[in-house]
C-alpha cells in the first residue's frame, strides 16, 4: 500500500469530497497545413468567417449563463474575449494571408494568433502575460470550430470525479458541471482566480495553487480533498478515510436536520430577536445568503473588486456591484466594508516587511484620498436603496474616525452639490478588530452608528499570533480570556452609547460561543452563509437570562481550555438540545 501523502494548497471553496481523480488537460488542437486551390480560396475565407460567428455565439451564450449564475461583473472577462475574437486587424490579416499563401484557414489563423501570443508573453507586464491565456482560450475555440471538433471535455467528466488540472481556463471553469464534479484541485490559481469564484458560486469544494500537483497525481487515483483546510490527500490511509467519511456523513445528516431552520426567524426561545446575517465576498453569494436564511449582509468584502482586474475599479464599476447587491437584498440591510487589503495590492511597486502591522485597510484609504473618495461615492450612490450601511476596517485610533468622518462629509457635500441622491440617514460603523480600538471603544462609540467586532483579527492582534504560521497556530484561540474580555468591553461601550454591536468573525458561527455572545449582549451575528441554519438552531434553543448567567460566569478563567470546558458544561446543563451541534 503506497504511503499517504498530503498536498497543500490554498483553500478557496469549502467542503470535503472523496472521489476518483480525473486529470483534465485542455485538449491540444493539432493544426495541419493544406494547400487550397485558387477557386476555393473564397470559400475558405467564408468558412473562416462562419467559425468566427459560431465562436462568438458560443461565447455570448456562456456569458449569458454566467451573468445569470455568477453576476455580470464576473462575466466581463468574456467581453474582452469577444473583442479579441472580433479584432478586425487579425481577421483581415488572416484573410489576406489565406489568399496570398493559398493555405487553409486553420493553419494561417494559428500562425497569426501564435505571433500575437508570443509578443505578449515576452512582455514584462504581468497583466499582459495573463492575457496570453485569454488569447489561446479564444484561439483554440476558433480552431476547434474550424476543425469541427467538440470543445472542452470538462463537460464530459465522469460521475464522482475530483477534477485535477494544471489550470482551468475561464471559459472552461464556466461550464463545469457540478453534478459530476465533486471537487477541483489545480496547480495554478489563487483565491481570486476565475476558478475559485466559480467553485464558490457552485458550492464545489476546491483547493488551488498546489505546487507540483501534476507530477504527483495520477488518473483515477482515490483522493480526499478538504476544501476547509486546503489539502488534497493522496493514498489516504484507512483511518483517514474512515474519519473523513464520518465527518462527511455527520455533516450531511446535520445539514438535513438543520435545513428547516433556514426559514425560521432568528429568535431566542424567550423571543428576543438577534440579527443573523451573512459575510460574503462576491456579489453572486447573495444567493447563498438568501438560501440559508440570512436577514442581511453583515459584511460585504469589497476586496474582490480590486483583485480580479487590472488597476482599480472605477466608481461606476463599484457602484454597479453595490447597487445590484442592495437591490437584491432589499429590504434587508447590506453592510459594505471599505478597502481592507495591504497597499501592495493596489500599488504594485509597494512592499513591506510586516504587512499585517503595516500600510493596510483604512490607513491606505486615508493616505490616498482620491482612491478612498471614489469608493465612498460608489457606496453612497448605492445607498439610495435605503438599506446600505458603510463600515471602515482596522481603526486603531480616535483620529482615524475623525478623519474618515471629515472625508465622508466632504463626499456627501460634493454629491449634494451635484444633485446626486443618496441616503442622508446612512449608518456609519467601524470594525473593532485591534486591541487599541477595543480599549478605546467608549470614545469611539460616540462617533459611530454601530460596531462590528472582527473577532479573527482581534484575536490575532491581541494574542500577537499569526494563525497562518503553523509553528504557532495552536496559540490562536478565540476563547482566550483576553479576547473575551475585550469583546465584552466593546459590547458594553457600544450599549452605553446606545449603538448596536455585531460580530463578524468565525466566533459568530461557533455554537459554543453563541450563548456566551448573546449573554454578553451582542445584537447581530454575521457569518458564512452555510453556518446560518446551525446558528439559528442554537439561537432558538436558548434564553436570554440563562445566557447572561453563562456570560457572567465565563470571565473568571485563566486559559482558553478552561473557558471552553466551562461553556460545554453549562450548555449541556442548560440547553441539552444543542449538544449535538457542539463538537
Amino acid at each position: 500500500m503506497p504511503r499517504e501523502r498530503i498536498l497543500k494548497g490554498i483553500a478557496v471553496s469549502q467542503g470535503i469530497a472523496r472521489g476518483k481523480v480525473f486529470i483534465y488537460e485542455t485538449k491540444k488542437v493539432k493544426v495541419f497545413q493544406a494547400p487550397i486551390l485558387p477557386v476555393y480560396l473564397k470559400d475558405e475565407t467564408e468558412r473562416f468567417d462562419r467559425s468566427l460567428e459560431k465562436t462568438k455565439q458560443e461565447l455570448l451564450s456562456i456569458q449569458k449563463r454566467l451573468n445569470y449564475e455568477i453576476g455580470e461583473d464576473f462575466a466581463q472577462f468574456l467581453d474582452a474575449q469577444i473583442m479579441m475574437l472580433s479584432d478586425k486587424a487579425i481577421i483581415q490579416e488572416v484573410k489576406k494571408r489565406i489568399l496570398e499563401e493559398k493555405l487553409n484557414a486553420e493553419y494561417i489563423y494559428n500562425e497569426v494568433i501564435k505571433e500575437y501570443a508570443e509578443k505578449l508573453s515576452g512582455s514584462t507586464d504581468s497583466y499582459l502575460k495573463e492575457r496570453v491565456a485569454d488569447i489561446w482560450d479564444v484561439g483554440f475555440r476558433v480552431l476547434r470550430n474550424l476543425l469541427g471538433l467538440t470543445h472542452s471535455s470538462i463537460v464530459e467528466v465522469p460521475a464522482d470525479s475530483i477534477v485535477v488540472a494544471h489550470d482551468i481556463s475561464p471559459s472552461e471553469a464556466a461550464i463545469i458541471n457540478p453534478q459530476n464534479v465533486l471537487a477541483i484541485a489545480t496547480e495554478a490559481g489563487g483565491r481570486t482566480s476565475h476558478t475559485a469564484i466559480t467553485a464558490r458560486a457552485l458550492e464545489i469544494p476546491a483547493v488551488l495553487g498546489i505546487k507540483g500537483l501534476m507530477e504527483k497525481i495520477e488518473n483515477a487515483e482515490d483522493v480526499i480533498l478538504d476544501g476547509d483546510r486546503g489539502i488534497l490527500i493522496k493514498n489516504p490511509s484507512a483511518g483517514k478515510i474512515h474519519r473523513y467519511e464520518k465527518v462527511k456523513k455527520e455533516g450531511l445528516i446535520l445539514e438535513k436536520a438543520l435545513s428547516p431552520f433556514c426559514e425560521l426567524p432568528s429568535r431566542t426561545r424567550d423571543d428576543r430577536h438577534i440579527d443573523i446575517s451573512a459575510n460574503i465576498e462576491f456579489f453572486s453569494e447573495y444567493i447563498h445568503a438568501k438560501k440559508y436564511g440570512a436577514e442581511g449582509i453583515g459584511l460585504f468584502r469589497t476586496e474582490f473588486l480590486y483583485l480580479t482586474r487590472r488597476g482599480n475599479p472605477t466608481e461606476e464599476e463599484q457602484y454597479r456591484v453595490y447597487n445590484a447587491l442592495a437591490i437584491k437584498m432589499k429590504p434587508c440591510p447590506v453592510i459594505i466594508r471599505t478597502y481592507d487589503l495591504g497597499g501592495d495590492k493596489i500599488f504594485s511597486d509597494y512592499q513591506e516587511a510586516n504587512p499585517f502591522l503595516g500600510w493596510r485597510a483604512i490607513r491606505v484609504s486615508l493616505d490616498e484620498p482620491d482612491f478612498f473618495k471614489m469608493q465612498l461615492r460608489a457606496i453612497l450612490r448605492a445607498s439610495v436603496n435605503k438599506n446600505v450601511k458603510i463600515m471602515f476596517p482596522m481603526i486603531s485610533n480616535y483620529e482615524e474616525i475623525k478623519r474618515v468622518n471629515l472625508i465622508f462629509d466632504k463626499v456627501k457635500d460634493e454629491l449634494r452639490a451635484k444633485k446626486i441622491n443618496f441616503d442622508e440617514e446612512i449608518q456609519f460603523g467601524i470594525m473593532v478588530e485591534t486591541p487599541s480600538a477595543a480599549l478605546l471603544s467608549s470614545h469611539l462609540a460616540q462617533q459611530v452608528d454601530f460596531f462590528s467586532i472582527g473577532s479573527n483579527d482581534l484575536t490575532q492582534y491581541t494574542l500577537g499570533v499569526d494563525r497562518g504560521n503553523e509553528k504557532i497556530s495552536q496559540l490562536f484561540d478565540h476563547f482566550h480570556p483576553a479576547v473575551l474580555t475585550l469583546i465584552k468591553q466593546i459590547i458594553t461601550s457600544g450599549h452605553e452609547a446606545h449603538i448596536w454591536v455585531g460580530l463578524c468573525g468565525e466566533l459568530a458561527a461557533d455554537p459554543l460561543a453563541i450563548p456566551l455572545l448573546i449573554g454578553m449582549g451582542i445584537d447581530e451575528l454575521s457569518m458564512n452563509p452555510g453556518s446560518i441554519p446551525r446558528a439559528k438552531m442554537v439561537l432558538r434553543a436558548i434564553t436570554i437570562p440563562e445566557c447572561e448567567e453563562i456570560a457572567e460566569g465565563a470571565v473568571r478563567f485563566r486559559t482558553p481550555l478552561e473557558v471552553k470546558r466551562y461553556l460545554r458544561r453549562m450548555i449541556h446543563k442548560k440547553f441539552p438540545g444543542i449538544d449535538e451541534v457542539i463538537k
Partner: protein
Amino acid sequence: MIKKPVKILNENGLHALPASRFVKLAEKFISDVMLEKDGVEVSGKSIMGILTLACEKGSTVILTCTGKDEKEAFRSLRKILEGQD
C-alpha cells in the same frame, strides 16, 4: 492626416479597459487610426495590436488619424490616452 505624439497619462496605462474603450471609440470613426510606439505601428482598431504595444503609463505613442473625421477622431482618442475621458 493628423499625426502627433501623445503621452499616456491614463492611470492604468493603455491596458485592458482603456484599450477596449479606445478600440470601441476608434471603430466609430471612418478615419484610419494608427498607433506607433518604439517603431512598431498597429491599427488603433485592433485590441490585440494595442495590447502588444504594452503602453505603460508615462510612455509616448504616435497617434495618427487619417480620413474625413480625423479631427474629431484625434481629439476624442487623445482624451482616452491622456486619461481625461
